[in-house]
């Protein structure tokens, strides 16, 4: 195995790995500061912050010969015998000078800059910079320039790392951003009439190491040090991009992509990034409501009483059909099926409505937005298969309801936007008991006897399976609005289980009973697990 020596410490790297010195040093616990390098973009080595001393150790004699001058760690491959020195006097002075150079023309308006607290210019200044300013003072100016519907540019904070320009040229393939002029007068800009307007536009804000690029959705909303973050998964489509939900006191302020080499790498689309506002929409359904007369108002039912009364109403009505929404987690889906069959052993269980919009859209960097706008169809199908190998879909349930072969129905939704029209909803108008569990009112809730709230993606813990059969587990970031029992809590309660809802216990139970989901029984890494590999591995040959 190739050995790299970092600050005197030996570390092994994989024989097939292609690492640069930043990546190799990181393995040894040495974080080499850098601005312009990013693993998802071309290497330009222009910021010069990552300059280190390198050399080679002769394999035979063990003698180390160092290069006579500093080299950028980002463009230097780490091979067997590579020696990296990250903390010598030469390196420290070089970093301090780069910091000083970047601060010469910088407005240093941290008090009014969103990036404060997560800004590399700040961080590196404190870690590597000089204590006193030596350059001439000049008047403060911090211009703001509109570059598109989602992103704003604070021109003078830019340090010319060109990550944003490279992103639009290499990853989104849209080339809206450019560098204008030459030398110290260079600025980032867009061509008039051609704003930064692609479906991946928000990623440039993540890429910007400083506060030059700002996210209009997040601008001035929250200081970063007040936010906590939870590892979640985006519920916008079947790509299942890994995200962090950043929140404070149960309010979500922004979503950021979470690095996952198997799914989204470093990126997320704008629909996903900004697709959290529905969580705080005042029109959300809260509280459990019941009515016997469709035309009348709903009567609030205290949550501790819902399980028994709902069970009784359904049992009284007769044959049950359940739509298991692809917005539900694997655990919630399984519990819902179990509850349904415990009320009616012949209950028809179908995969709920699968929303689609447009076609799959792939970008030059490899990122793909899926047309299927729900996160867990495959997971729900695998669960439903355990109860009914036929694995019917939503249309079958609609037909059964319309043709009078159902007497009651429990429709789970949890869709962030309108998903059902009057013509489809009317299929359920003849049922003796219609329970709808959803985020917002719809033509279906207009016909319902029971109206129950749904949880949003950040308000639940559990597992989703994406289009590539990768199962990802995530935790709950924020509590749902007051008066909302999320699906998991309600179903746990209806199964008669004691204590708080424990998704891990349910997940393990599901894994035991399903070959397709068997991998869920073990330790699931943060980047998820490919169910098919484990399925094949565990299938007896």
């Amino acid at each position, binding site marked *: 195995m190739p050995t790299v020596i970092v600050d005197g410490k030996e570390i092994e790297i994989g024989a097939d790995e292609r690492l640069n010195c930043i990546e190799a040093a990181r393995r040894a616990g040495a974080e080499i500061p850098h601005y312009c390098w990013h693993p998802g973009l071309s*290497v*330009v*080595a*222009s*910021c*010069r*912050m990552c*300059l280190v001393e390198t050399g080679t150790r002769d394999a035979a004699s063990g003698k180390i010969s160092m290069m006579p*001058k*500093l*080299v*950028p760690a980002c*463009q230097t491959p780490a091979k067997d015998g590579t020696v990296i020195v990250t903390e010598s006097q030469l390196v420290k002075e*070089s970093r301090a*000078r*780069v910091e000083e*150079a*970047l601060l*010469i*023309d910088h407005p240093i308006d941290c008090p009014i800059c969103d990036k404060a607290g997560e800004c590399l210019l700040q961080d590196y200044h404190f870690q590597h910079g000089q204590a006193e*300013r*030596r*350059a*001439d*003072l*000049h008047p403060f100016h911090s211009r703001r320039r509109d570059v598109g519907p989602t992103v704003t540019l604070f021109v003078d904070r830019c*340090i*010319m790392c060109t990550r944003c320009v490279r992103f639009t040229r290499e990853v989104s393939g849209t080339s809206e951003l450019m*560098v204008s*002029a*030459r*030398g*110290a*007068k*260079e600025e980032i800009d867009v061509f008039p009439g051609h704003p930064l307007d692609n479906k991946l536009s928000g990623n440039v804000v993540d890429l910007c190491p400083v506060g030059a690029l700002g996210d209009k959705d997040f601008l001035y909303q929250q200081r970063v040090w007040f936010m906590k973050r939870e590892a979640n998964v985006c519920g916008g489509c079947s790509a299942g991009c890994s995200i962090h939900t950043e929140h404070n006191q149960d309010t979500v302020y922004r979503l950021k992509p979470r690095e996952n080499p198997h799914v989204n790498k470093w990126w997320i689309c704008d629909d996903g990034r900004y697709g959290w506002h529905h969580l705080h929409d005042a029109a959300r359904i809260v509280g459990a409501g019941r009515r016997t007369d469709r035309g009348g108002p709903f009567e609030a039912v205290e949550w501790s009483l819902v399980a028994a009364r709902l069970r009784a109403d359904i049992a009284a009505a007769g044959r049950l059909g359940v739509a298991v929404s692809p917005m539900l987690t694997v655990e919630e889906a399984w519990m819902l099926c179990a509850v349904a069959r415990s009320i009616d052993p012949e209950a028809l269980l179908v995969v709920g409505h699968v929303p689609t919009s447009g076609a799959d859209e792939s970008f030059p960097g490899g990122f793909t937005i899926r047309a299927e706008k729900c996160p867990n169809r495959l997971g729900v199908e695998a669960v439903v298969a355990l109860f009914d190998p036929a694995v019917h879909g939503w249309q079958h349930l609609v037909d059964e309801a319309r043709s009078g072969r159902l007497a009651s129905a429990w429709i789970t939704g949890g869709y962030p936007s309108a998903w059902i029209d009057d013509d489809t909803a009317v299929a359920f108008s003849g049922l003796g008991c219609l329970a709808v569990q959803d985020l917002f009112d719809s033509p279906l809730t207009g016909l319902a006897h029971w109206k129950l709230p749904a949880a949003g993606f950040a308000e639940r813990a559990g597992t989703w399976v994406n289009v590539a059969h990768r199962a990802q587990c995530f935790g709950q970031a924020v509590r749902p609005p007051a008066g909302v029992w999320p699906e998991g809590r309600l179903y746990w309660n209806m199964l008669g289980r004691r204590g708080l809802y424990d998704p891990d216990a349910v997940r393990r139970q599901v894994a035991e009973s399903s070959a397709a989901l068997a991998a869920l029984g073990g330790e699931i890494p943060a980047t998820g697990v490919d169910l098919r590999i484990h399925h094949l591995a565990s299938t007896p040959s």
Partner: protein
Amino acid sequence: MPPFQPVLLEAVGVPDGHTIASYKGRGGYAPLEQTLAGRQPADVVEMVKASGLRGRGGAGFSTGLKWTFLPKDHPGPIYLCVNADESEPGTFNNRILMEDDPHQVIEGIILSSFATRASTAYIYLRYEYPRAWHRLQAAIDEAYAAGYLGRDIRGSGFSLDISLHRGAAAYICGEETGLIESLEGKRAWPRIKPPFPAIEGLFRKPTVVNNIETMACVAQIARRGVDWFRSIGVPADPANPRDPGSYGPKLYCLSGHVERPGCYEAALGITARELIDRHGGGVWKGRRAKAVIPGGISMGIMTEAELDTPLDFAGPGKVGCLGLGTAAVVVADETVSMVDFLHNSCRFFAHESCGQCTPCREGTSWSLRMLERIKAGKGRLRDLDLLAEIGSTMGMMPGSTICGLADGAAWPIKNAIKKFRGEFEDYIKRTNPDGWMVTDPVPALQIVGAH
């Protein structure tokens, strides 16, 4: 020493010397015909290597050796880029070669393309040379008409197209990968190396970039032979196995405060004093030289006491200059203020820095700002220390930048502060009696006009 009999400049002053008829009458294109008829590309590479020819564009790298970096048996295309961007202040020899003897250059290009198996040659010509543009294009047309360019030249199986590509007034397009990026249609931000152009250059294909004067030398070596070339100049130091010597004739540009500014051909190794006194008619107006640039402003500054330095590839380095560069000698007489001199240099480099990498982009801008402030009578002694630091930390030599523009920007600062420090200190103290001792940062001046 008898005056050097011009070879590279043999057409200057000859009526219609720029035409193909005149060139052929002087023996031109016969070497090309002989080469195509009876020699292999490898023979031409060996010839140029053996001659000891070192690139005339400023870096002085062995031309033949550079050609061997091309991959063997590459399916092609291989490109030859001829660097006619000549923008180094004080330099104008390429202009004269292109205007007065374009066929010498073209024959050199065809021979070099044959040697390197290039199928396309682009001459990247700076915008500011319209006369050279017209002369070159006319010569290229004549060469096509005479069958020296195009498909299957003279039945040899070798094909070559030469195109002129016009620049737009950016100095950094003279840097080989800046030139390549510009030719490809992008902003001329030099590339990081590796990969080097010989492996991955223009359009990501193997590429050689050579200077105009280098091409002319190739034509002359083919005509007059390796021994002739090596008989001129300064032989390699036998005690130093790494010294490739300084062989061949060189075009020296002389300008500034001399009686006769001009381009003079001499054997490599002539001293600055000889160039000024014998060729240039001496310092003008009976004055003494104060500061002399040895090879274009990037190479730094020599004092009057250093004028006996031989201007070969090794000489200027011995007096703390960056190197021979473009061998453009610029003389400043005793009335010149070094503050003005250095300000002019800093203004140039701040204007021309491509802006890609932090130390050059900010260092050139900061040093100009300081010189502006010093000139305006608000300088501090501390500024000299800061300038010296910028001068010693910015550049490829310390490893802090991507290309050598920063070294060129740094060297005049370094040399000026070191060799003329007294004058700077006097100026600062005299013009800023109340503030020269301040060590805290001071307000920058508003810079009037673009830099």
